[in-house]
């Protein structure tokens, strides 16, 4: 009998405590971020899709078409090509396209780059109605536009 009453009392008390805790939270500020109006600050190491780095002096990509990123990619989503202009010491990319639909944003390509030519974009508001827009992302033009 005593246990019966004790359980009722402790049980009811636990319910009251629970309700009190929940009520106390009602007077705190919401912690959610209202996305289209507000956005969180992305950390410096945020892994977005990749983009080419450009030499600020010449405006040309730093990439020398060594193909290390292409080899490092687990999903084979980087395709690049380059030529060696007359008199130049190194190659320049003529085409650098990223298949963003298969990219898993692992960052192995950026890590593999020995020439500091690749970086992560901070752009995450990417949307399109056509798959092909992201199947062949031309990073040469994309990077230049982003710079402007």
């Amino acid at each position: 009998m005593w246990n019966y009453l004790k359980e009722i009392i402790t049980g009811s008390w636990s319910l009251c405590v629970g309700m009190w805790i929940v009520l106390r939270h009602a007077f705190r500020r919401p912690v959610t971020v209202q996305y289209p109006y507000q956005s969180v600050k992305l950390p410096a190491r945020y892994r977005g899709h990749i983009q080419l780095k450009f030499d600020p002096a010449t405006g040309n990509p730093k990439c020398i078409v060594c193909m290390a990123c292409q080899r490092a990619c687990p999903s084979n989503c980087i395709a690049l090509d380059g030529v060696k202009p007359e008199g130049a010491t190194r190659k320049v990319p003529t085409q650098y396209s990223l298949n963003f639909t298969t990219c898993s944003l692992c960052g192995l390509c950026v890590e593999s780059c020995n020439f500091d030519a690749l970086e992560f974009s901070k752009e995450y508001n990417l949307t399109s109605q056509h798959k092909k827009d992201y199947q062949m992302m031309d990073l040469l033009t994309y990077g230049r536009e982003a710079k402007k």
Partner: protein
Amino acid sequence: MMAIPKDLIMELVRIVLYVVGFLAFIAVNAAYLSLLERKVPSWFQLRYGPKEVGPWGLLQPVADGIKLCAKQLLVQKGADVALFKLAPAMVVIPAIMSAVTLPFSETIVARNIDLGLLLIFSLSSIHVIGTMLGGWASCNKYSGIAAARVVAQNIAYEIPLLLVMVSLVMVTHTFNLHEIVNGQAGGFWHWNAFRLTASPLMPAAFIIYFICMLAEANRAPFDMLEAESELVAGAFTEYSGMGFGLFFIAEYANIVVGCSLGTILFLGGWHCPFGLLPGLHWFLIKMYFLCFMVIWVRWSFPRTQFYGLLNLSWKILIPFALAHLVLTSIMLKLL
């Protein structure tokens, strides 16, 4: 041509006015309680809740209503079409009809019936059958389980509820809601919930009533019939559009009626706690406070287990209600 008596016309106008009034009252309450049901947990849970549609999301229920009306009412293969379509109506009509005898204030009452309390309890039993039929007619196993649960649950909870009511009627000597309220005039110490002279267990009786009301309205933590982590949406799984909308309205209508009844029976109806300025506003304040409690309870606790719910009823609520009944009768005899 026979002249229509003026009294009859007045009566007809009165009836029409009350019918429209009640429908509007229940509909607006259902709509805005559903908004409150989303706003209150958002405060508890450190979020904003609906805020896009109208200022503070005030037009959200309207948007919801339009959405529900625009949706097609699907009836799946194998369902008992007649019962399937009848069930939402069977649930929502008694809930609205119960409002007929509720005295909102000294003057605002549709029909002051001597056996008002009895009428409300008989009506509130019908919606159980409606929910059961809805679950049964859905031809869905989850709904079928829910239909079986709802019957067992409501039988278990009618008993302590009615035991509490019997003792209350013994104290008040009437079934008439209007008279019950007037018996509690003059300060909160006269309210039935605190009338310790009638029985020391009166506050417990109020809590029993509140718990039973939650169970009757199938509200969390007793929402066995739409336990979404077990039964998807229980009896309402197969309903779409306004079929679901009616169940939804009925749920909130039941809360409103239940909270109103709690206010009338235990919290002194339209009377002020300090004996000042009685009126509709006090009734509404008390009723919405109870509604808030209902929502608060829902978002604080996990769901009970089915046998836990029956254990609570048979092992705790019924013994207490019986003790209360015995005490009341003894006190009544002695004093």
